[in-house]
């Protein structure tokens, strides 16, 4: 690269990379992830749940034994997850018994109590009372077991053997594993993980184009409003100045995205196994992350589409900066550009689910939507390359070239125009200047 452009690139990069904001911004994502993992580890390690004590009034007399039998899971330390004690209560002393139970709950002697009514077979209602009723996972377990017992009793009443029927039902369960058909054969993959990754990455891509694109506008406005432009362009051509600016700020984005991307790769590769090794149960979220298919190829496309998308959008952002005198004036021109970006994002959400339709193909070739839509198609179809992927690199390249040539003419005139009220009409006039 031309030495002069390189000087601009390194100035734009270094003056910003050295700021606290940028350093914090770059490290924030990894730090949040480290805290998340640390939190899961500490929580899993030191805040093991203890046995929960429940008392049960079983007016049928048939369900309590099955609850004890079927809810005999143990915790990591070997003790029971739940302990149940049956309370006898007659019609006469029921109110007194309930009062005693409530007192026990409040005194934290027990965690809660269940009342299984006599007519459970028809009413199908069980009452649970406790201080804390938000332990959904546990309650769902208990609900399932009582349901099963009630079902068993109903089957027996009809003269069937619940054991035989349950066994037959279990024997009939099947599981669906999805495989993706690729040129290299079929690959099993987790659909959820893939969508999650695609949305996350595309969101980052668009967000970064917007944030750093506006930094380009800001940088141009700074040179204009501080009257720096003329000093600079006595040494370097306006288009070189513009390109240096765009590339320098682009590198800031690429650096941050590389840090974030590397951390996602580290996390999905080593995160869950490491926690399992340390004896911590992995939450479902981590299983999803563990299934992410964030390969170096997807990563490379991610950076490539960011780079191209950035060149395209940042050139427009530079044009806006050259046309206006203050950030406020710029806002009216920035809005449509941001809107264009958001439309691309919404198209992406639909396309990610049906990446192979003709509509998806054409949408991903519209230059302003290519970065989000084509990248999403590549990420969900990985390791197969979707149709038009290579073509989109060429169409982007040509579009970027055309936009830069056009904007260079606006930029050249605009950066020396002080105090003029900006308008598109004026900018179009500038394009025609010699």
């Amino acid at each position, binding site marked *: 690269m031309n*030495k*002069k452009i*390189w*000087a*601009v690139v390194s*100035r734009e990069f270094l*003056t910003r990379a050295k700021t606290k904001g940028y350093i914090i911004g770059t490290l924030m994502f990894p730090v949040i992830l480290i805290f998340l993992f640390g939190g899961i580890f500490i929580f899993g390690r030191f805040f093991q749940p203890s046995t929960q004590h429940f008392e049960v009034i079983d007016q049928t007399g048939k369900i309590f034994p099955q609850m004890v039998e079927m809810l005999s899971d143990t915790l990591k330390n070997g003790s029971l997850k739940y302990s149940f004690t049956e309370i006898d209560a007659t019609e006469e002393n029921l109110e007194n018994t309930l009062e005693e139970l409530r007192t026990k709950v409040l005194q934290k002697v027990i965690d809660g109590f269940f009342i299984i009514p006599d007519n459970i077979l028809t009413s199908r209602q069980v009452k649970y009372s406790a201080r804390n009723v938000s332990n959904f996972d546990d309650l769902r377990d208990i609900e399932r077991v009582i349901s099963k017992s009630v079902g068993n009793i109903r089957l027996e009443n009809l003269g069937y053997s619940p054991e035989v029927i349950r066994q037959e039902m279990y024997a009939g369960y099947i599981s669906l594993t999805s495989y993706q058909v690729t040129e290299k054969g079929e690959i099993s993959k987790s659909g959820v993980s893939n969508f999650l990754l695609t949305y996350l990455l595309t969101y980052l891509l668009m967000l970064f184009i917007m944030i750093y694109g506006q930094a380009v506008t800001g940088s141009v406005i*700074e040179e204009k409003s*501080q*009257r*720096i432009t*003329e*000093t*600079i*362009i*006595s*040494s*370097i051509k306006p288009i070189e100045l513009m390109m240096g600016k765009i590339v320098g700020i682009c590198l800031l984005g690429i650096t941050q995205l590389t840090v974030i991307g590397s951390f996602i790769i580290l996390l999905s590769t080593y995160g869950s196994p490491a926690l399992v090794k340390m004896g911590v149960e992995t939450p479902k979220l981590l299983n999803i992350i563990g299934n992410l298919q964030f390969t170096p190829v997807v990563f490379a496309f991610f950076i490539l589409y960011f780079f191209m998308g950035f060149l395209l959008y940042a050139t427009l952002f530079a044009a806006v900066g050259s046309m206006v005198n203050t950030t406020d004036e710029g806002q009216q021109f920035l809005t449509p550009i941001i809107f264009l970006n958001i439309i691309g994002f919404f198209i992406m959400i639909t396309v990610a689910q049906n990446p192979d339709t003709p509509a998806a193909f054409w949408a991903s070739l519209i230059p302003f939507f290519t970065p989000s839509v084509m990248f999403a198609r590549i990420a969900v179809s990985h390791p197969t390359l979707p149709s038009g992927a290579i073509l989109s690199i060429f169409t982007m390249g040509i579009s970027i070239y055309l936009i830069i040539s056009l904007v260079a003419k606006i930029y050249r005139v605009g950066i*020396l125009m*002080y105090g003029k009220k900006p308008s598109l009409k004026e900018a179009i006039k500038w394009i025609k*200047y*010699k």
Partner: protein
Amino acid sequence: MAILEVKNISKSFASLKAVDDISFSIEEGDVLGVLGPNGAGKTTMIRMIMNIIVPDNGTVTLLNSTEKSTANLIGYLPEERGIYRKMKLVNVLLFLAKLKEMKMSEAKKQIDYWLKRLDLMKWKKKKIEELSKGMQQKLQFIATILHKPKLLILDEPFLGLDPINTKLIKEIIMELKANGTTIIFSTHQMESAEKLCNKIMLINKGKQILSGKIGKVKESFGKHNIHLEYGGKDDFLKESTYIKKFDNFGNYVEIQLKDDMPSQDFLKEIVPIIQIRKFEIKEPSLNDIFIETVHSHGKEDDHE
């Protein structure tokens, strides 16, 4: 060898003719002062020389255009000058030196030299926004001359400087001139122009109304003005056929001779009549020329 040749350049902005058919050329080592009232077109002309704006008509040939990158051989101090406020002084200078493709080691050496010379050394690592306006002006000047340009173009170099710093900058300009640097500068300060330039050019309303070597310009204005201190009767003032007009202060008189009358003959005529204490052929100052020329052109325009 002409370092800069400007041929018939014009530039209009909407209905305003900012620069109207200006031509001139300067040789290596020349110092050209571009004078003119506000809004005369000086900055527009300089921007066209710098190729920052393209002329509607005419051509600018810089350094014979054979040199690879003319931009690196020019030092330009624009009228609209500012600098990155958040950057450290030394980093700004290094950045501008890089834009001129200077070697880093040489740039660092030059930066230290000039910072010391202009008394900015202790601000080297400070941010620009901490500097006073005058210091920023000096910094701008350093940035302009750091890469030892062959051609220096200074648009109002003394704007915003106090008398001490103005003197310092003038000294440096004189030094650069002595080292053979070709210099163009625009200014309102006639006194500076008079001392620094060997050529001047006067622009008014976009038109070049006067240009040439400073001595010749002055001569063309000045050979008929005589300041005379005398004793004796003042009848000769009315009787002499040499005199066009005079302004008598008693023992001191300012005389303007008729156009083709040699002052030598006038002196011979008065020697026998009066006692001469002082006879001075007075060159007009640039200030006088400036005011007179602009004024008379203004009148012409009014007649149009």
